[in-house]
């Protein structure tokens, strides 16, 4: 998209958001690893940890692939 005017692709913004959210969610999951939040079902599966990690991986792929490079 928008190659003609070199607008940063929307996918790059998606990647940035995923990396930031992934880090926050992963850290939150690790903090609550031994003291899961009360009232949350299946907390023993530690969903925030692997979901946060997944977001970081996907976000990094998007950031790397769509990083706005200068015109050559």
């Amino acid at each position: 998209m928008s190659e003609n005017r070199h607008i940063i692709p929307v996918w790059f913004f998606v990647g940035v958001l995923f990396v930031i959210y992934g880090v926050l969610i992963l850290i939150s999951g690790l903090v609550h690893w031994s003291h899961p939040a009360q009232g949350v079902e299946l907390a023993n599966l530690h969903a925030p940890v692997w979901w946060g990690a997944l977001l970081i991986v996907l976000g990094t792929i998007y950031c790397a692939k769509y990083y706005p490079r200068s015109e050559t």
Partner: protein
Amino acid sequence: MIAMMALAAPTTLVHLSGVDLIIIAIYFLLVLGIGFYLKKFAKTGEDFFLAGREMTAWVAGLAFVSANLGSLELLGWAGNAYQYGIMAAHWYWIGAIPAMVFLGLVMMPFYYISKTHSVPGYLKLRYGTEASALSAVTFAFMTILMSGVNMYAMAVVMEVVLGWNLHFSIIVSSLTVGVYVAAGGLFSAIFNEVLQFFLIWFGALLIPILGLIETGGWSGMVARIHERFPGQDFTHMWGPMSSASNNPMGVHWIAIVFGLGASVSMGYWTTDFLVVQRVLSAKDVRSAKLAPIIGSFFKMAVPLIVILPGLLGRAVLPFHLVPGNQAGPGQFKFDDVLPLMLARYCGPGLLGLGITALVAGFMAGMAGNVSAFATVWTYDLYRPYIRKDATDTHYVSMGRWCTIIGLVVSIGTAYLVQYNKSMMDYVQALFGFFIAPLFGTVVIGMLWKRVSRMGGFLGLLAGVITSVTVFMLMKFVPSTVKVFAFSPLAQPLAQAMWQALWATVTCVVVTVLVTLVTKPKPDEELRGLVYALTEVPREEHTNWLHRPVIWGVAALAILVVIQIIFW
């Protein structure tokens, strides 16, 4: 802002932690930043109103499907799934996929080749000012009313779910949307719709994953539902529809196929400018044809994060939800099922992601409404009837002001709705009056070059009048439900389908009859607008993997398989 958000009442559905609030705040900062960044690219009318017509099929397709993936829709359909079972998925499958494929393969070439900027713009080229003005005025008026209704609904949801102050939600969301849409126009709206699409998927997908783990898979979930609600069928789509009395919706399969599939959804997905505008931003005809088809595959998957959580709610929630108008203190209503399921499985961090997805959905819905309103007002009303010969810069400036004025009117509408709740139902019904007959007018005009100027206009008018009349009669004279919906048991959703079917049929019949006794438009005025006089670019030299027709057929085939699986 964060401090105000944190002032949640103690009796809310979910409670946010610090990390959740940070996640929400980051989203607001990012969308505002994107809006300011895109401002420098939205200089001409083509940029501001049609995102420069340079979007790829993927971006246009995701924005197309995302414009309809608002939070009210998510909460409402998850609630409908709890109430009616998997039958609610008809609105995502037969009620969307054929129409999206039809838009891509049949209608999009005409919209795109005619170089129109809007659906009323196409009507002006095809029929003339009468049909175009009727469509533009009603669309602009109702879009802005809908934006206000959505704004109010969002504020109520945020108040009930999170305990946020009503005025706070209205003002912060409208200010944010106003800033980023006024700055970047459709560029901003589309960028945020794509972001919202990913947020909604990754914010809600954990609910079905963890829900199915808890219930032991699909069969475990079905067994639990049968155990808790014996004698009721919530897990079959077509089986209970052989008669209106066999299902809680009171609907017969004919209403689903012809009312929903052939009228309501065709009207919405192919002529509602709010969604069509996203596809018009595509960079070429092939991308414009592919965009709605790409969108159809994602639309087909949405029941995973909307319908399945509703069904899982039936299986796992330890209490029963009730209709909204019957919910007493301490009781939850059907539409609360999605936030309840979110709170059930998501702790700090994940909860913030889920709530951000809901907020993003609401804001993207508002942005969609105001950007479509700004386009129709500027190009279909202001330019032809108020100021014909202004510069392009003037029209862009008008578009920016329209965005702000549209939001101010929306805020006014939101407060009006607060004092007159029944207005909400009427505004939503009002929107439905025009959509189904408009499809009849547009499609018959595209496929039959003989249709005359007055045929199109009077057909549309007759369809709208029929729609209003049928709605009023069924609402205020209940005995007529049996006449128009062929069953006294038809619920409002089923009634709306029959109402749309009557309106479409009337529109087409009147259009044909008037056309036969009036003079057709000359061929030279119809080139690029109708099937017989338009050279649609052929794709025989395109790699088969890139051909829209291949993917359109694949989408329809998958749709059929899904229907058989959940029959």
